Each structure stands twice: as structure tokens, then as C-alpha cells.
């Protein structure tokens, strides 16, 4: 029996979270796999905490707001300490349909990779997000390719499956803000194999993106710096 921890970071998601948790619990899985939902409530100001306490999930209530990276890492730490075989990050706003979880797991079984990224862009299906966001995604694809020579089509996708070896690394260090593109560098420099599989995503059902329109430039700048720092830090350690 393989145990999967579905880590769902939630900040002010009282409206969407119940449906997300229910979807995951009733999602189809390959044989011999079981999933537990871990909802990390990142000190929400609304009733998210109360809502999740009544759901079929493991609620982790942070006493202060840590931001997306810190919240996700809380779930990863929990999964690592409680001996889960895999963790899968699923956003709390309903963007990542639980019906696609199976695809990630099956890809992992077939290709024995350490990280599986659920990508929107291998072929053009489903919700494709805004032009500026796509520009950013292409930029990170170029930067990642330049530094570590891997091509990830959707480096901002948070919909990812990681195995226990990766869990050990991310329990120790995981980026705070906008963690997704930086995490790819982190994984690849630690020698993990990364695979990508096409999934369909929906438009968010509630809440707002962690990236507003005005912070796009700050986002690109901050993430570029973080990627380069991570690159230098891990290269010099070796």
C-alpha cells in the first residue's frame, strides 16, 4: 500500500475548500494507492479553519501567515514525518481538478521519476491563463534550461507529485514566496528526475491568485534572483 499526502494550502478559501477536499477524497486512484488530504490553513481571516475542521482531512492550522511556500512546506514536513510515500500539491481554490491526480501517479509508475509536474502547456487544452503569465512561464522555461538544462513547459504549475526522497529535501528547505519555478532548480540540482504530464486545469473557483497584476515585475525579478541564488548555493556546496 502506497500512501499519498494531498497537500492543500488554503488562504481565505472558505467557499471553495469543501468541494476541493471532497473531490480529492473521491478521486479515482490506481490500485494499492491511498490518499489523505492535508489542508494547511495559512492563518485565514475567514472561516476556513472552522470549515476544514468538519471535513474529512488532516487540518494544519498555522498560527501566523507564512505565505504559499511556508504553508506548502508545512504539509510536506507533516507528510515526511508521518511516513507518506508521496505528496501531491493541490491548490485550495479548485484550479487543479482531482480527476487528474491519477494521471500524475500513473506517469510516476511508468517513468519512475521523482517529481511529476502537471502541466497546462504540453498540448493546448483547458484553461490557459493570461498572456502576461504565459510570458513569465516562457521566461522561466528559458532560465531553467539555461542553468540546469531541463525544459519544463509549465514551471509555475503548483500541481506536482513528489516522492519521499524529494520530501526529505523540501522539509529542510523550500522557498517562501512564489516557490514553484525555484523548486524546479532545487529538485534538478539535487539530482532528482523530473517528468511532466499534460493535465487540464480550471479557472479558479474562489480566492485571488498569489500574484496580482502589479506584482508581476517584482515576481519575475524576485524569482530570477532566487533561482540564481539557489543555483549558486547548491553548486558551491558540492
Amino acid at each position: 500500500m502506497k500512501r499519498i499526502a494531498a497537500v492543500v494550502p488554503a488562504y481565505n478559501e472558505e467557499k471553495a475548500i469543501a468541494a476541493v477536499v471532497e473531490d480529492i477524497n473521491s478521486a479515482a486512484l490506481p490500485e494499492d494507492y491511498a490518499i489523505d488530504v492535508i489542508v494547511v490553513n495559512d492563518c485565514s481571516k475567514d472561516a476556513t479553519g472552522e470549515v476544514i475542521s468538519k471535513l474529512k482531512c488532516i487540518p494544519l492550522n498555522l498560527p501566523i501567515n507564512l505565505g504559499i511556500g511556508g504553508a506548502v512546506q508545512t504539509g510536506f514536513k507533516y507528510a515526511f514525518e508521518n511516513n507518506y510515500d508521496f505528496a501531491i500539491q493541490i491548490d485550495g481554490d479548485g484550479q487543479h481538478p482531482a480527476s487528474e491526480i491519477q494521471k500524475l501517479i500513473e506517469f510516476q509508475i511508468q517513468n519512475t521519476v521523482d517529481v511529476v509536474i502537471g502541466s497546462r502547456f504540453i498540448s493546448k487544452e483547458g484553461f490557459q491563463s493570461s498572456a502576461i503569465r504565459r510570458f513569465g512561464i516562457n521566461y522561466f522555461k528559458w532560465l531553467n534550461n539555461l542553468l540546469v538544462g531541463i525544459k519544463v513547459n509549465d514551471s509555475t504549475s503548483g500541481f506536482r507529485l513528489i516522492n519521499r526522497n524529494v520530501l526529505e529535501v523540501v522539509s529542510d528547505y523550500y522557498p517562501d514566496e512564489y516557490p514553484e519555478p525555484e523548486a524546479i532548480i532545487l529538485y534538478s540540482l539535487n539530482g532528482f528526475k523530473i517528468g511532466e504530464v499534460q493535465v487540464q486545469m480550471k479557472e479558479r473557483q474562489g480566492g485571488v491568485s498569489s500574484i496580482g497584476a502589479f506584482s508581476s515585475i517584482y515576481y519575475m525579478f524576485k524569482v530570477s534572483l532566487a533561482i540564481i541564488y539557489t543555483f549558486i548555493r547548491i553548486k558551491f556546496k558540492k
Partner: protein
Amino acid sequence: MAKIQIIAIAISLLFLLYIIRLIIKGKLREEYSIVWIVCTIVLIVFSFWRNGLEVMANLLGVYEAPNLIFTGAIFAILIYLLHLSVVISKLQSQNKQLAQDIAMLKEKMEKKN
């Protein structure tokens, strides 16, 4: 002794007393107080020794003595600000770790009840 010297010495001493009071009350940690005590002592020394600044400027080849103050002070302030940024970064990461541990412990406790 000129009036300004007496004023400067008085203010420096008051400042020193205030820092000592903060340490005694536990509002300022000793390691952060060192830099403030050193600054105050420098101020007091130069308040007594009026020509000191000229002497130091000549020694270092600075033509206008007040420029030495600006250069030195700005440099010291920048270094101290950087040090504070390092301290804050450390606090932030410790804070994160504590918050994560609290969240996991709370869950463990609720499961037991």
C-alpha cells in the same frame, strides 16, 4: 571649554545612561548595545578633544574635516543596517519553523482528544 562641548558631553552622557537603562530593563540585548555604547564613547571623546577631528582628518588625508564625519557615519550606518537585515532574516526563518511546528503539534493534540 566652549558651550557646545558641554552640551555635547551632556547629551552623550544622557544617551549612554538611556542605553544602560534599556539593557537593565531587558529591552535591549547586550550584543546589540555594544555598537551603541561604542558610538557614545566616540562622541564623548571628540566632545572633550575639540581638535581631534582635525587631527584625524589630517592623518587620513581628508581635506575638509566634516567630510570625515559624513563618510565614517554613513559607512557605519550602512554596515549596521545590513547587520539588522541579517538578524531579521534569521528571526523570520526561526519564526516560520516555530509556526510550522505549532500547527503540527496542534493537530496531534486534537487527534488525541
